[in-house]
């Protein structure tokens, strides 16, 4: 097997696991520099993609090959980008793990968290300890033999990337070689790639910011104006940074592309799923109604629950996240709740740096 690997080392393809809109967009970016293996779980979907050459509404670059085999991916690629919703991530990793070797590099692009036990109900008062919450990179490290792990986060709305518009992202990894390999594979004249050693910081910034996208969508939906939206974004960010600090996360991670960068993009764009969830709630739809009509997961919804439970366990107060929790899961009326934003007694502007 070693000799097989050596002969293919020159032009080993790069793999993407998950053919959602972001997975597809990343595949197309990668295809500019590499041959790409794109994995999708459902055989009928794979077949459809092979014939139509379209995935998640995006045209597939001709250098993308569709596969339904995780083993094929592990056997023929060194660099793998898992980009599946967090609720499917553990299952996918479990299936992939037996085929993985220590020379695989995994850079995931999933903006969600895994909790244990997985299907527990999280209410307003629930508590989650840090050990019960795993980021995707922590999940990979625990379940597989791969050490060289990274994450890919930033203001990367799939819709815009698919249109060929310019963007930048950040790869978080403890390993220079992972960052460099990711850069080489992704970089193009329309896509800039930064690096950071703070994997956990990048992951949490990228995950938590979805909460604010939901809130921002609500404010837009109620037409409360840009001042109110800016208020929610900055004060919300402050809450997230405080939560991050109790989890030993360096605040700087929140100030980069994966944090502020992504907040600005998703809190302003109707193309963000989380933003549209908030927007539609404000327009009077219920969460159940909304979830019935979207075909891809808005990670932010679950993240609101997890973030609040983490804060509860740490004894940390997060008024904005708590408010969103009430609106999402307890049918609190959107407009009243947002008005309450105005009544908080906030002492200091910036107290997290």
């Amino acid at each position, binding site marked *: 097997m*070693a000799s097989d690997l050596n002969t293919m*080392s020159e032009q080993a393809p790069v793999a993407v696991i998950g053919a959602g809109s972001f997975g597809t967009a990343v595949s197309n970016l990668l295809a500019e520099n590499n041959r790409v293996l794109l994995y999708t779980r459902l055989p009928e979907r794979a077949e459809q993609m092979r014939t139509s050459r379209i995935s998640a509404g995006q045209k597939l670059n001709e250098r993308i090959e569709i596969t339904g085999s995780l083993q094929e991916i592990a056997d023929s690629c060194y660099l793998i980008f898992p980009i599946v919703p967090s609720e499917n991530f553990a299952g996918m990793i479990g299936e992939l*793990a*037996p085929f993985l070797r*220590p020379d695989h590099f995994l850079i995931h692009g999933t903006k969600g968290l895994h909790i244990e036990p997985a299907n527990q109900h999280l209410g307003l008062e629930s508590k989650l300890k840090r050990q019960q919450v795993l980021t995707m990179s922590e999940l990979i490290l625990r379940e*597989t033999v791969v050490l060289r792990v990274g994450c890919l986060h930033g203001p990367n709305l799939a819709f815009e990337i698919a249109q060929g518009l310019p963007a930048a992202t950040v790869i978080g990894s403890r390993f220079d070689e992972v960052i460099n*390999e990711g850069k080489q594979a992704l970089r193009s004249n329309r896509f800039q790639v930064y690096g950071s050693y703070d994997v956990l910081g990048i992951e949490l910034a990228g995950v938590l910011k979805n909460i604010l996208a939901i809130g921002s969508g609500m404010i837009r939906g109620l037409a409360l104006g840009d001042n109110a939206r800016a208020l929610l974004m900055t004060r919300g960010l402050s809450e997230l940074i405080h939560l991050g600090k109790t989890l030993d996360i360096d605040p700087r991670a929140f100030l980069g592309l994966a944090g502020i960068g992504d907040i600005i993009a998703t809190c302003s764009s109707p193309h963000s799923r989380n933003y549209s969830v908030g927007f539609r709630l404000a327009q009077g739809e219920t969460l159940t109604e909304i979830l019935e009509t979207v075909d891809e997961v808005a990670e932010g919804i679950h993240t609101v629950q997890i973030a609040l439970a983490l804060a509860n366990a740490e004894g940390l107060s997060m008024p904005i996240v708590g408010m969103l929790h009430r609106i999402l899961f307890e049918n609190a009326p959107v407009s009243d709740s947002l008005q309450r934003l105005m009544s908080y007694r906030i002492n200091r502007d910036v107290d997290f740096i």
Partner: protein
Amino acid sequence: MAGKETQVPPKRFPLVQVVPNLEEWPLYRLSKDRERFLQKVIEEAKKELLQDHRGSASMQVLLANSLYHEKIRLTRKPWSVDPPDEKKFWAFVAAELTRLEQEAAPPASWNALLQTILERYGKEIQGNFHNPTYQFARHFLPIAFNRLLNASGNRNFSRVFGNRLGIHDRVHLDGNVERLRQIVRDGGTVVMVPTHFSNLDSILVGYAIDAIGLPPFLYGAGLNLFSARILAYFMNRLGAYKVDRRKKNKIYLQALKAYSTSALEEGCHSLFFPGGTRSRSGAIEKQVKLGLLSTVIEAQRRLLLENPDGPFQKIYVAPVVINYNFVLEAPALIKDHLQEIGRERFFVEQDRYSSSGKIARFILRFFTAGSDIRIRFGDPMDILGNPVDASGNSLDPNGKTVPLAAYFQHNGVLNEDTQRDFEYTKILADKVVHAFHRYNTVMASHVVAFTAFRLIQKRHPDLDLYQLLRLPEEDRWWDWQALSIAVTRLVAEIKARCDRGELYREPVLDQPTEAILQHGIRNLGIYHDKRALKVDKRSGKVSSDDLRLLLFYHNRMDGFGFEHHV
């Protein structure tokens, strides 16, 4: 899983030598080849330093910086073991530096000066293995230990010559010893990494290594140990190399690392304390130093790169956890610790422990201190902390064999990447810390100390640690019944964790609470002048002479999340 170890049936120690022919002992081979090895070390160190300091300007900075540090050391921290020509040597280096700068000398001349310094350091570091001394020590020491152990203080001198309990009855060796022996038998290289609580750890581990039938290990001993002439005689001949903790300059540190890396590369079993110094607080190391651990990663990477396609020499890491009822240095250690964390807030009373440093008294007391010293060998792992099977193969979380070489491959090709090595070192460090907790053996004395300290903390929730430690004598007591209830609860939790394979306990913890309490209090810090806990015979109450000592032994169970169970 490292979780379940095979239960080793009670053994008669010492076990028979795994490698009977001493000419095959790596340390012996190394000593037969000292000159070549020294040159290799110097070459390796030079290579690394030249990589970071290309060109005259950069080399000048390195040399000048080292000279600066050495000059400070010479004036501020001179030791009797320092060679008499130290000042002369560094004056020579200073003169050379000036001359080279004035002549705008080419890189080769600067590098020659580096070579001169490295040669001096190399010779200073290098130890020697002298077999007759080793054989003498291994026969003499157990006899001496046995006498001491059986002397049991001054109470019963007749036992020195009477029915004797061997050191093997007093120092309990546990763990998967057979796995370790198998690895050595099969030619693997073992790095033993023990917890560090006492100055005598190294002697104990040395004894334990011999008792389980392994050949001697290379060990970096602090230069201060060489100042006692008798110790120096042994150390020098037992394969110890010298580590001078005063020297923090880059050239010296590189030489030290090169020494360890090269020895490992040549298959030399090595011993080092990754905690660096003794645990001041009495807690198991929560962090370890990366310097020597990095040599393990580097040596393994080199061994893989030397022979990319064929079989390779594999290095294994074996954690060792030592447990004492009594650490003689405890009073001084906990004092250091409290000063470190609290500085100005801690009122330092004069105490007599720190001044009484007589080594004979030290050793005597240490070995007369109760019966129970427990040394547990953790399951050996590979250099990234993966468990290994009986044949030494690394296993992944699913129990599948892992090709170790693949960790050092990039796109299918083995390569050198120092940043990767550094991250791997941190991963190994985390695994070692985890193993220290995982293979800990909870002792009754620790349970009692932990419970008592937690109870008094809860009784005074408004006091901070320093106020608590200064509680007057009349407040330093415990009701037997309350202590008993709390201990029962804690022991239940400990047992549950042991059953889940997360921890070990000494057998006395399976007895009724009454017996645990009696045994624990009796053995806790047994030969300290002040008792951490004692029972008042009339009132039946438990009291403490010294809460700092109690804190020290309490800390032994810190870091396990037990505080929620008292």
